């Protein structure tokens, strides 16, 4: 066997309360760390901003889905009723658009909802069966009662010993090295 490749994904600090985590995330940001992620059992207000994440494309994708669903829905009905299968019933207009509104509306909602969910999952890179943070034994608490801050190794300021000390100074109850076994 040649050498076991065991890269470091980052260093993770465990916190007991959301307030401590929020303070630590802001501290890491102020100290100049750029590649930081936080893991919490429920969404915490202001945390995404504290780790430097402001903008999400989800609303835009949803809007696109809605516009496509709506135009596609109306176009489908127009094409069916006025172009490919016109039925002359007492000379009534073929493009009877008020009658097409319910289906147009339903397909707008359908398009927007599906785009929103698929877009959210795609931007989150899910489904993703493996991620280095799962190798940390205490990480199961991230879905119960503990709050984690991970400073990633790809950060230019990252230094294993120094970053660990930095997290300890931010009152992390545990500081854990996260290995990446890819």
């Amino acid at each position, binding site marked *: 066997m040649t050498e076991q490749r065991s890269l470091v994904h980052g260093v993770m600090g465990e916190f007991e309360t959301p307030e401590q985590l929020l303070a630590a995330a802001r501290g890491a940001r102020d100290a100049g760390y750029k590649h930081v*992620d936080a893991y919490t059992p*429920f*969404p915490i207000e202001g945390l995404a901003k504290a780790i430097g994440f402001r903008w*999400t494309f989800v609303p835009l994708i949803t809007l696109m889905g809605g516009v496509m669903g709506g135009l596609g829905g109306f176009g489908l009905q127009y094409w069916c009723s006025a172009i490919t299968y016109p039925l002359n019933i007492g000379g009534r207009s073929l493009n009877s658009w008020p009658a097409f509104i319910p289906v147009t509306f339903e397909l707008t909602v359908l398009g927007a909802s599906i785009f929103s969910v698929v877009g959210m999952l795609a931007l989150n890179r899910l489904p993703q069966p493996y991620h280095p943070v799962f190798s940390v034994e205490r990480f199961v608490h991230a*879905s119960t*009662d503990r709050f984690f801050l991970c400073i990633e190794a790809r950060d230019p300021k990252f230094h294993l010993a120094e970053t660990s000390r930095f997290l300890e100074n931010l009152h992390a109850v545990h500081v854990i090295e996260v290995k990446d076994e890819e």
Partner: protein
Amino acid sequence: MSTTQAPTSSPELRGPNPVLEPGHTYASVTDKIAAVVLTRPIGIGWLAGFTLCFSVVMLLTVAVAWLFAKGVGIWGINIPIGWGFAIVNFVWWIGIGHAGTLISAILFLLNQKWRTSINRFAEAMTLFAVACAGLFPLIHTGRPWMAYYMFPYPSTMGIWPQFRSPLIWDVFAVSTYGTVSLIFWFVGLLPDLATLRDRAKQRYQQVIFGILSMGWRNSARHWHRYQSTYLLLAGLATPLVLSVHTVVSFDFAVAIVPGWHTTIFPPYFVAGAIYSGFAMVLTIAIPLRKAYGLEDFITMRHLDNMAKVMLATGLIVAYGYFVEFFMAFYSGNKFDVFLANQRLHGPYSHFYYALLICNIFTPQLLWIGKVRRSIPALFVMSLIINTGMWLERFVIVVISLTRDFMPSAWVRYSATFWDYATLVGTLGLFTMLLFLFVRGLPAIAISEMRELVHEESHAVSKDHK
């Protein structure tokens, strides 16, 4: 000191009737809800209930198989009564589903904290009710294996659906509603599936919840996008749920049949849907909280609030009944006046009086606080309202169709054994799916409960300042 209390701290989290009993931590709410799925052994009560429901589903299977073999002639329908039990049951079931979306979407947008512990199973109820509802128009088509004709697809016959027909609107409304309810439910479940994956001890549980949770890791970036999607879905589902029963009411209101051709139908159908849906949520919540010891999470405050929603929507429904009569006589249209008289004095008048008792008179007891806080009274009330709402649809469908424009076409309608077997069968299917749901998935949104604990601890710490 109360004078220093922050005005923003929500009174819902404290006071004599909290939405979450005090003393809970992040871990305790997680443990309590996850344990129902992960570790609690299957009890004799669950097994007995499931078996009973399963045998009723077998009855449904027989009823549907016999229908496929013989055709819709086994039901009590015949011209001019083309719409018998099948449409009554369809409208009833789809209406029940509406409360789930109301709780999960509209109350979310209105920032009502008390929705948190009831939204998950109310959404499940929506899905199962829509599944039962969708079955009826499908088997009512007579040749259900050709139901795909209703969808626009390029067929070799070169024909396309009639998009000016409310029945085609219905196809789109109900299938969109089912799809959006399913993905809304799944998005809500995603963090909880990850919680179950992390807490699962058995290998098969780890694998199943691992696959379903898609590798959700509670990252702050993920949460941010997740919340964005959840809010957008709630915003989309709100007009959707109002549109669905509106479109269902168009099935009636667009027709020129007396008793159907009224503009009050859309709002009064939507109110009736929410009314019956909340009744069904209560019918489920009361045994559920008892059986799984969830009284701390589904508190008296929830039951009280739901009772108030029932009272309010019940009054809107009562107004709808009143306007139907008022418009019949005010318009002077002799067919409408005749139909109004048929409801009061015709051969089905006892259904109409039963409906008034169930839907209008009995629920007035909910004005009394003692009734709203009595669990047995609420349970009985919810069953009465569900019956009343079924009777409402029966009155609408059957009385109008049995009294056509020409007396020579007048007939009587009575349901056959197979009509009842199908109705009872869907009740069994609905309950069986709920039995499976409470043991297979978290019946209360765990991550939202943790958020509630967080907010509660804030409210408390502000009090102590």
